[in-house]
């Protein structure tokens, strides 16, 4: 299966959520290795029966789990009627900070299970993220391929509401709080009237519970995206999380 065929399977022409599928990993030529097949089998096994999503209807899912576990759970959720929408916005590469090969392999190896789900064109979305996207820091010689999500990577609250989505379930492991980048997205949705719930799969009895998304730093600020972007860019040489002082924040660095 070539790159375009693979993309078309996850992002069919008539799919209601196809425009949001990120093409980056699909566009990367990749040859499956035996260990990747084994790793995917293990991820699929872990996902099986791990969590049952709500009956599809007015709920969207955001699966923010590490690497192939997110994709494997998305395929499981497809069997329950949710359309996986991969949002992986990062490249493959030698000596990369975030190893994306297992995800790329999962896209290929999960495609039959996805097809078997026979999803409706307007099936509710399950947005799939890699919780490792901001992990670690690059060392010399490494390829820094960490990434962040932005509000514009997702449909707006208007679109979700117009398509009958009323609530969003955030699925994570080890926490009920969204990551900072995702909080920018969820807060916009919450403000527009969508109900936000979270489930921690590491808890003993994982069940969605309502959360209030707190206002993250720089929410709605002038140049918010630029600030985060600069933070990400500058930190390709030194770690995420900083905000570049500029004329709109402080005078530091600009006299």
């Amino acid at each position: 299966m070539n790159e375009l065929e693979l993309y078309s399977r996850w992002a069919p022409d008539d799919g209601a959520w196809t425009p949001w599928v990120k093409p980056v990993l699909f566009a990367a030529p990749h040859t499956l290795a035996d260990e990747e097949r084994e790793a995917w089998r293990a991820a699929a096994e872990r996902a099986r029966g791990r969590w049952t999503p709500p009956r599809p209807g007015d709920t969207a899912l955001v699966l923010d789990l590490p690497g192939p576990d997110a994709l494997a759970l998305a395929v499981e959720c497809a069997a329950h009627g949710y359309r996986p929408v991969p949002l992986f916005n990062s490249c493959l590469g030698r000596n990369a900070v975030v190893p994306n090969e297992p995800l790329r392999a999962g896209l290929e190896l999960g495609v039959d299970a996805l097809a078997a789900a026979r999803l409706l064109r307007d099936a509710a979305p399950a947005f799939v993220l890699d919780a490792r996207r901001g992990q670690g820091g690059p060392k010399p010689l490494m390829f820094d391929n960490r990434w962040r999500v932005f509000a514009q990577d997702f449909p707006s609250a208007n679109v979700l509401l117009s398509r009958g989505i009323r609530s969003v379930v955030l699925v994570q492991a080890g926490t009920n709080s969204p990551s900072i980048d995702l909080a920018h997205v969820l807060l916009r949705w919450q403000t527009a009237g969508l109900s936000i719930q979270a489930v921690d799969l590491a808890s003993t009895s994982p069940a969605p519970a309502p959360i209030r998304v707190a206002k993250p730093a720089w929410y709605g600020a002038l140049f918010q995206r630029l600030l985060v972007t600069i933070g990400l860019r500058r930190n390709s040489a030194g770690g995420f999380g900083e905000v570049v002082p500029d004329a709109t924040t402080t005078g530091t660095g600009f006299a």
Partner: protein
Amino acid sequence: MNSPLAVAPRFSSSEYAELRRRTIFECGKWDPQYEDGCVLAEFALVLTPEVRDELGELAEALAREALAAEAELAARPELHAELGLPRAIRSALREARELGLSPGVARVQRFDFHWTTDGWRISEVNSDVPGGFIEASGLSRLAAETLGLALAGDPTAALADALARATPPDGAIGLVHATAFTDDRQVMLHVARALEARGRRTCLLDPTQLDWLDGRASAATAWFAGPLDALARFFPAEWLPNLPASSRWRHFFRGARTPLSNPGASLLVQSKRFPLVWDELATPLPTWRALLPETRSPREVDWRANDAWLVKPALGRVGDGIGLRDVVAPREWRAIARSARWFPAHWAAQRRFAALPVEAGGEPLYPCLGVYVIDGRRAGIYGRIARRPLIDARAQDIAVLVNA
């Protein structure tokens, strides 16, 4: 006033779907969606050869003047603060007096033209790290095939040719960018393919992965190690000072012997406050004076009360932070106004022009034509179009073609 821009018939839904797919997979455009909208327009803009040539001549004149002004400004450090440049960059440029300016090669500039009630006007030059190569070369080529029209030029090919001319046949070129950012990496991969087709080796890396020895750059990565014959930079110059000093980023401004496309000094004329120093320069700038709206310090004009003026950040990009009171959301306007009031030295006030829309499907849309000049010669057009008279991240990319 008759528009020099025509709009091609809207692509059929199957043509459009095919165009989107091919732009992603053949041209490497990985960001075709922005929130709820596809960033690829469903039709193309069409120019006559005469309009293409007129824009090309104007852009080449602007480029000549800009390069002359850049050279003069580089030798006039006392003017750099007026341009709103960060202190660290001003310091690096001052060091050029002893160490020499870092040499430029394959100089790329893009001038953003708008059709207005007064004819053609420009809003800015992107002289540092202009983007749009995938769209201007790739998307436009696919649209040209679909519609049977001609390309307005191929900036990717022109850039790759210029870099190939500047390097030996088996030379290695470093493509410097923020590797974590796929929007930038896609452009670098697109350029890398064109360079490799011309027999050059390429290395994609971030600026901290350069070693500088006696002004010569070499790559220190797990995938490529060794000297580089030229650097193509897609990392904005004003962000370089945010890198650790150990990265020796100042070589992008002074003291390098490896040629750069573009050198850091290109930021001198990219500043939106460039017009504030025109009267201090010996370089004549007749084309700039004719095409760029009057620009003043925000301290000098009442831009808050007078809608004839807008404000923009001195080093803003992609339309970020442009203050058009009746166009941007009230909350955004308040934030912009507050920032421009508190830090006027980092903003410019510019007289507004009245952009004229084209009509597509009964809807008025505002186009912007980014005309590339590479090594002094016109090299294609990057088109964008927006529902409001502001070209920012919400604008769509549009193929710009020419009637044969």
